[in-house]
């Protein structure tokens, strides 16, 4: 199998990124429409930071809420898709470098991936 050039790898990855962002934006937009179905409701108090209810802060909570069509959880689910796209980009780079037989950079990308997964893991609990 022919080794792909850097440019080819980059383009595949960039196209994937655009898909990720587009789908995230669509989900957030749909959530936004549902969120605004009571347009005359009052604005929540944002002037002082307060911890949101748990369902908006954990992966399990967000997806349970989104499945039940809770608008705020649908928005959060779209944002989770968005956060996942750069992570997927690093995964694609691991594959791309492996196909180029560039072991040094397979290692570098895996290191970045591990840092990201550590962060998401410690954040999501």
């Amino acid at each position, binding site marked *: 199998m022919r080794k792909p050039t850097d440019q080819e790898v980059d383009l595949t990855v960039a*196209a994937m990124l*655009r898909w990720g962002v587009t789908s995230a934006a669509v989900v957030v937009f749909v959530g*936004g429409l549902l969120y605004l179905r009571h347009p*005359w409701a009052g604005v929540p108090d*944002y002037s002082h930071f307060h911890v949101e209810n748990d369902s908006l802060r954990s992966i399990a909570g967000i997806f349970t809420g989104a499945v039940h069509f809770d608008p705020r959880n649908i928005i959060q689910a779209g944002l989770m898709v968005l956060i996942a796209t*750069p992570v997927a*980009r690093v995964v694609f780079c691991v594959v791309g470098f492996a196909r180029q037989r560039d072991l040094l950079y397979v290692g570098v990308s895996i290191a970045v991936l591990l840092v990201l997964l550590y962060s998401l893991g410690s954040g999501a609990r």
Partner: protein
Amino acid sequence: MNVAVFTSLLFFTSVLAGLLGALTGLGGGVVIVPVLTLVFGVDIRFAMGASLVSVIATSSGAAVAYVREGLSNIRIGMFLEIATTVGAIFGAYLVARISTHWIAGIFGIVLLYSAFASLSKHKETPEQTPANPLATRLKLVGSYAGPEGETAYCAERVPLGFGLMFGAGTLSGLLGIGSGAVKVLAMDQAMKLPFKVSTTTSNFMIGVTAAASAGIYMARGYVDPGIAMPVMLGVLSGAMAGTHILVKARVSTLKILFALVIAMMGCEMIYNGIAGRI
């Protein structure tokens, strides 16, 4: 004010921020946080959460355009992302440890620096230096189509650049911004990479860096759907429109104007931080 008006105001402000950020190369995140806190009176942590997700959206959305230019260096970007992602986690950890007065003050300084950096003239450094052995071993080399045909380049002062990238990542996680200005500083000034390679590689790195702190922001509740939704959609549409109308038009006047606005917001943030109002 009701939810519909509040959301629309946030959306249109964000479109403007994204548009100006793309046209001037400063990015939308660096403007949206001060606007949300100073104009809308939103707590700085909610503002940072909304900004951070917008930063991921614009960075990933613009990647196609940048890659097609063939200027970003995927290896240099990936290597330096080790430093920025670790820095971003450290920065996100710091947010919960230091007071918002300090965050506002540091934000103000970063705004002032970004305004200054966007206006300062950058000269291409064509002088050929002997290939740096460490950079060669790490494959931090490349070539790009310069004014005099294909020009090869090789990174210098790798440890310094790596250290600065850790700092850029920390600022990103601490302030909820892409910190593109500091990333460009590390590549362009410290590592002596060509300016265009630095800016495009920086954009490429911003999304991954931001993702490293986004999970922590989300778990802490900094990302509120009511604010993040209009801001993310707005900044993204503004930035997309901005890259389309970027026809090397007369952006210099706009750039000076925007830099002045950013500098003023920087002073306002520092003042509010010291006065204890943020």
